[in-house]
């Protein structure tokens, strides 16, 4: 196989090999069939680039973040405050709490609360569980997921951290994970390999004389 690297994005095979391949395609008929050497139309190349970009953007682990008990700790801390007690309507109570929490929340917490809204009744249900963990839980509140009215230890397996003298796996949901990292390398290797495979063929401007296309 003859390689040539002076114009890598034009063609990687030498002129002699390109000529042989073209002649081969012109001469050889597979059961009467032959093949052209046309390029993928440029709009479709751009669509493919868009597909790759979309694949990473739409599947980013951050989009599937589950509600953690930590998201609601300020609600629990303030739900029995005199200001809330004075409000009779449950909808107004939770609205007051939202305004309170939002005023001091960073954008990550605001986003999480928008995706996982709760009502006053929900808060009444989950508050005892959150307090219990705050008073004697083994792990940080952020390691617990809120599933319906239950507070459960999340099943994520992150890096080892030391808690209470023991090495345990972090249960935080990652916004980026190693599966994603593997994908970055996997797709990169695929693109490089495909460029080598396709650029080893004669350049698309060199067309075999096979007729109508």
């Amino acid at each position, binding site marked *: 196989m003859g390689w040539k690297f002076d114009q890598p994005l034009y063609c990687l095979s030498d002129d002699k090999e390109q000529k042989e391949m073209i002649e081969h395609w012109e001469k050889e008929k597979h059961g009467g*069939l*032959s093949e052209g050497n046309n390029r993928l139309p440029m709009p479709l190349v751009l669509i493919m680039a868009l*597909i790759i970009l979309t694949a990473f953007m739409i*599947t980013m682990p951050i989009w599937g973040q589950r509600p953690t008990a930590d998201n609601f700790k300020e609600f629990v801390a303030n739900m029995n405050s005199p200001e809330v007690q004075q409000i009779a309507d449950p909808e107004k109570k939770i609205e007051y709490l939202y305004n309170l929490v939002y005023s001091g929340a960073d954008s990550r917490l605001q986003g999480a609360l928008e995706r996982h809204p709760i009502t006053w009744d929900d808060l009444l249900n989950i508050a005892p569980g959150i307090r219990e963990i705050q008073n004697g839980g083994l792990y940080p509140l952020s390691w617990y997921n809120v599933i319906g009215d239950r507070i459960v230890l999340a099943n994520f397996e992150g890096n080892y951290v030391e808690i209470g003298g023991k090495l345990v796996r972090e249960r935080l949901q990652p916004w980026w994970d190693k*599966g*994603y990292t593997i*994908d970055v390398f996997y797709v990169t290797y695929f693109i490089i390999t495909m460029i080598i495979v*396709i650029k080893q*063929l004669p350049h698309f401007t060199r067309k075999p004389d096979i007729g109508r*296309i």
Partner: protein
Amino acid sequence: MLLKLLFAKNEDIPVGSATIFFGYSSIFWFVVGTGLGSFNAAKLAFPDWVTGTELFAFGHMRQVHVLAVILGWISMAFAMTMMYMTPSLGNTKLWSEKLGLWNVFLWNIGLSLGLLLLWMGITSGREYSDLIWPIDLVVIFGVLLPLGINVWMTIAHRKTQGIYITNWFFGSMIFLTIITVTIGQSPELFNLTGLTEAYLTFWHAHNLLGLWITPVAAAIAYYTIPKITGNPLYSHRIGHLHFWSIIAFYSTPASHHLMSAPLPEWLKSFASVEGVLILIPAVAFIANILLTMKGKWSLFVENVEIKFSVTGVLLAIPLNMQGGFQQTRAINWYVHGTGWIVAHAHLALLGMSTFLEIAAVYFGLQAMLRRKLYSLALANLHYWFVIVGFCIYWISMTIAGLIQGAGKIYEVPYIDVVIAEHPYMIARWIGGTMVFTGNTIWLYNMWMTAREGTIIPDGRYAHEMAYER
């Protein structure tokens, strides 16, 4: 006749015998499979239809329908096309007609036995790998391996220097499917349970779809479209992109079928990206085929094989758009476990894959029998019954799935969802029954083609004579 040929010398077996037996077997199983589908759909539309008999309960009948279609229709149609396309593309003969005939014989026996056992309720209980392990051994050693040996040896004995893209797919996809089916049975053989069983079950199911049912159908289109239009394939280089992106992006995302299961999140993230990237081979394939049609679009109206083939290719567009995005966390949350997925599965099997295979079976049987189609009118009727029936099925199940998704998310009582879905279940039955009716017309047409079809003179093809009386 088959029994006589099974014990004849290979040289004495007429060329094309394996193709013809595989072809008629596939159509027979298609009629059986869609008939069972129609029966099952009637049970969902009319709950009082055939009750009181355990054997006819939906739980007994569903997997018989699924495997009759996959192993009987789709896979036998693949085998049929391999029996004539592989040698044709290598300018040679099939390596062994006799092996092909034994293959079709063992296939029919094994499948009949397997479906009978499933019907009786003897099953491994895992979707798509429902057959019990002794039947799985028949599938591996009586079905896939002999098919693979015949295809690989025919490619090895080709009289061309290069290998055409269709044969890349045929050779490699049989190899990968043997691995898929073998490893896919490990939960049963090694008594694996829980999440491991779930993962391996859907690793098998995913790869059966991704490395067999869809890419082999695409490989068929790479033959039928250039062959009938007379145009060269638009691009060898896009073929490379299609083939290698299937290998890279379709063999890896099995866990996107289990996005709600407690699999490691990183595995789901990895699979989900790969899942969207199936659009890469899809774009490559669709572009390559549709650009090959350049200057020959009139055949989409005039020629029945092109009509089926191009419809199959066009159906690959919504198929891959759905498949790419429905597995992402955000969308899967809504559609998982609903009729949407049933609609999508039928879009793959009854839509894209089936339409491409029907074209190849029409073309191959006429070519091997050297007889022109008995009735072009019946073939067109077949097309319209299948496409209209399929569309009714697909659209109604998609709507039913969206209703179920909404019901699931908003915790609507299950019985209310069942009532809301009822009209769509009736539409599903009507669509499925139309497909079944179309297929019985096809079986009759092909039976009559073998008996009374006009003999094609040497040097001509059936499609060239379609409008000659």
